[in-house]
């Protein structure tokens, strides 16, 4: 059980970072995991190509909630391209079935989820917040592109 529920994950679950929906925002999305009922409402602000803020509210298991908290730490304040690279790295880790040694430089607290990749039923939990962020950010970038 310890390989799945790392202390870092439990910490983020009990004390989530950047939680709560904030104003103003560019785009709000609502993503659900239909097989288990986990859900997240997530807002992004993109300013000058940088992820200026990500705020969210949701309900779900420890994995989905902690992964969303870690995600906000990784993407807020970073250029969109850099944040997307972290998304890609986290997705690759989740799809590795335990076969990847994660790069702490890139994923920071996200490396605690390496064990989750060995539990296929839980991978989608870990990806819920990331998918919502990617969706919202793509919409925000598209809106910004249309304005210019």
């Amino acid at each position: 059980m310890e390989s799945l529920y790392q202390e870092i994950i439990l910490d983020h679950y009990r004390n989530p970072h950047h939680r709560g929906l904030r104003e103003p925002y560019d785009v709000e999305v609502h993503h659900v995991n239909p097989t288990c009922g986990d859900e997240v409402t997530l807002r992004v602000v993109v300013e000058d190509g940088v992820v200026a803020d990500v705020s969210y509210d949701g309900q779900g298991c420890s994995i989905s909630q902690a992964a969303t908290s870690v995600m906000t730490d990784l993407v807020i304040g970073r250029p969109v391209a850099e944040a997307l690279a972290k998304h890609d790295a986290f997705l690759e880790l989740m799809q590795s079935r335990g076969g990847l040694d994660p790069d702490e430089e890139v994923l920071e607290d996200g490396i605690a989820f390496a064990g989750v990749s060995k539990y296929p039923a839980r991978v989608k939990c870990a990806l819920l917040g990331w998918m919502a962020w990617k969706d919202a950010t793509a919409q925000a970038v598209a809106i910004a592109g249309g304005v210019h």
Partner: protein
Amino acid sequence: MVTPAGSSLDVEAVRKDFPVLSREVNGRPLVYLDSASSSHKPLQVLEAERQFVEEHYSNVHRGVHTLSQEATDAYESARSTVAAFLGGAHDEVVFTKNVTESINLIAYALSNPGSPVQLGPGDEVCVTELEHHSNLVPWQQLCERTGATLRWFSLTDEGRLDLGSDAVNERTKVLAFGHVSNILGTENPVRELADRARAVGALSIVDGAQAVPHQAVSVRALGVDLYAFTGHKMLAPTGVGVLWGRAEILDALPPFMGGGSMIEQVSMSGSTYAKAPERFEAGTPVISQAIALAAACDYLSDVGLDVIKAHEVVLTARLLDGLHALPGVRVIGPDTTELRGSAVSFVLDGVHPHDVGQSLDEQGIAVRVGHHCAAPVCKRYGVPATARASTYLYNTEAEIDALVDGIQQVQRFWGAA
């Protein structure tokens, strides 16, 4: 092991028929408490299927060669066994894929040309708030196709249907409801509901997926028009389900799917259809699975459905008592064994059901977590999901105790309660 008081079932003898129950999971003896989702299969059922495939297998119907005739005889004999198991007649049993297909068969037949029931705006289809999605979504779709209105009986705080409404009335054309809830465990008053449907001229359709495996069911005594159940929850393989229908109703319904085997005459300008049940079995049916289902019926009859029911009441009472004694644990559904099946949903304060299920699996205990394909029930009771333990004839009191101990370990790990 001592045979539990109130149960005359020799569980240890039964367990010898289910080899998977002796395996380990995560270094601990498997405690399988997920039979409401799917049951395990005894050697006798596996052997019946294997013997048929090894010695008699061929496609059924239409063939003149020996194997085809033997396969047809075995398949139709399976139909008779299932019919007798339910208290119905041979031609009243349609083999389907599962309950979902059985319900869709009716819902689509009712909007196909030639349906004896015409649905349109102003007509109503009635369900209940505790339905599995398989007995809800097809009726929502039927209402979309026809313009009819969906009504339902709501749930009380105690997990029972509130029958004091006009959800069934003179506009009702169809009343569809579950016999036993897969998430709450609630057993519904089938006879009373069927009588209400009949009084207003509506068809009554029952999802018996959680009833037929666990208690003696006589479709005639229940007074219903149509009754669906599935094999894989009652010791048979996946892929085979049953729709039972009163002969005069099946005979009047148009087909759902078209194709081979369901026809009488076919020309380029049109076709006529076979009588029930063949009319509803388009294409090559599930042959060896149907034969295995009949073997499962025989197995359950040999043990005795009343014996099984009594055994499960003992287990369910022990589980409810164990859960009620734990602080921070809430049972979602009826809190006694009265008019209740053996599926017990519960939630732990401060621990998400997914984490409960995962933590129990680490201890070798298999429960199901999620909304159990009954999302409106979770919404009704204000929970995103539940953990559900469900027992069957092969479970022991020691396994119930292992679950209750396991829940306490989960609470300690997560710092709850």
